């Protein structure tokens, strides 16, 4: 008996909040009914209506067609008086104890009832829970929508990819072209240098030959000048000079 109490309290502990909703699934195997799941209809927020704190409203509605509004009250009074007068209920010390505890209970409920309900009523307890879950759900939805936006943007980017590739291709082609031209230039220069060298070489050759020839001719001429010829040329030069001096003198005196 006590173990069942412990088990059931344990079940209560298990299911109420912090001990893990996963344990609830373990208990499902004991329920034989078909498991109809979400959406579960919400529980009524308030319990059944009662009058004077204990008598359910259904009693009053039951008796209303036959006995009207005062029916249940007459029933209650009648029952009470019957039990008292026939001594089915004997007034003894427990009556006063009952009155006392009744007063305490009524006082407690009237005073602390609203504040206790206030702890767990919809505007504090469950609203927090629901608000947190809603927040989580909204955040998840927002992040998923953001994911969709990003995906669309990526797809748009992919469309423009060929332009990127063309530009890259052009770039590479230009590099290759530049490289090729540089090498061509270099090759031309090298070849020109070689050819210039050959030209210079030939020029040098010709110049040397020319100089050599000129020297040789000069040497031959100098060698061929006999002393006879030398005297004749000097005498000619002197007579030319005399004539020249005469003409200059004549021109000066005129």
């Amino acid at each position, binding site marked *: 008996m006590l173990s069942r109490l412990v088990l059931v309290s344990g079940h209560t502990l298990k*299911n109420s909040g912090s001990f893990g909703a996963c344990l609830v699934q373990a208990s499902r195997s004991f329920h034989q009914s078909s498991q109809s799941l979400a959406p579960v209809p919400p529980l009524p927020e308030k319990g059944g209506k009662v009058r004077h704190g204990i008598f359910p409203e259904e009693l009053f509605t039951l008796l209303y067609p036959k006995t009207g509004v005062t029916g249940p009250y007459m029933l209650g009074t009648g029952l009470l008086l019957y039990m008292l007068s026939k001594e089915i209920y004997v007034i003894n010390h427990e009556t006063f104890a009952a009155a006392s505890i009744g007063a305490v209970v009524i006082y407690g409920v009237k005073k602390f009832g609203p504040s206790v309900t206030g702890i*767990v009523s919809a505007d504090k307890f469950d609203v927090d*829970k629901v608000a947190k879950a809603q927040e989580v759900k909204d955040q998840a939805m927002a992040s998923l929508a953001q994911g969709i936006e990003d995906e669309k943007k990526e797809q748009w980017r992919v469309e423009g990819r060929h332009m990127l590739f063309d530009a890259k291709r052009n770039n590479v082609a230009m590099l290759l072209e530049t490289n090729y031209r540089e090498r061509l230039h270099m090759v031309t220069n090298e070849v020109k240098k070689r050819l210039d060298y050959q030209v210079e070489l030939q020029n040098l050759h010709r110049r040397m030959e020319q100089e050599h020839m000129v020297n040789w001719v000069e040497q031959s001429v100098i060698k061929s000048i006999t002393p006879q010829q030398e005297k004749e040329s000097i005498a000619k030069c002197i007579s030319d000079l005399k004539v020249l001096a005469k003409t200059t003198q004549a021109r000066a005196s005129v």
Partner: protein
Amino acid sequence: MMVSFFDQFASPSYLGIPNIAVAIALPWVLYPTPPARWINNRLITIQGWFINRFTNQLMLPLNVGGHKWALLLASLMIFLITINMLGLLPYTFTPTTQLSLNMGFAVPLWLATVIIGMRNQPTIALGHLLPEGTPIPLIPVLIIIETISLLIRPLALGVRLTANLTAGHLLIQLIATAVFVLLPMMPTVAILTAAVLFLLTLLEVAVAMIQAYVFVLLLSLYLQENV
């Protein structure tokens, strides 16, 4: 008609079936099992909130090994508090006025804490027998005293609960009888006595809750020493 006021504490039986069995099973009926829902109605929410809060509070000073006792202590607390409070209603029988029931709770649970302590950390458990800072000449005496104090714990637990509840019920009965008897003779005095009865009932409500809490709290303290 009762012969003596103590007859109310005799364990009642009807046609050979002990009523105490029904009285013990009654608290189970009063706490509905929460359905597998995320948001429940107010009653279940309050119940769950209270149990959670209480267990949290109780488990604060305990280390993780002590948390294994959460279920036991919380259910014990709910049981005792319900039985005590139900006993305040008229014409009811309170099982916790029976020493047998209270000792049945106190001795096994206390013994469990002691055995856990002796088994897992014997040095520390025995070390509790000597408080810190005792002067050396007093040590032998103090160990004897502490051992006696240790062995008396289950007795104290059981008898505390029994005595408090029995005394409270007895007082209520006596003063209610006084009111009943005085009412025809001296109504004014009867009304004064009725006021006393009202205050006493308030006290008894408090005592009912406090005694249950103290029982469980002391057990958790013994556990804290030993686990």
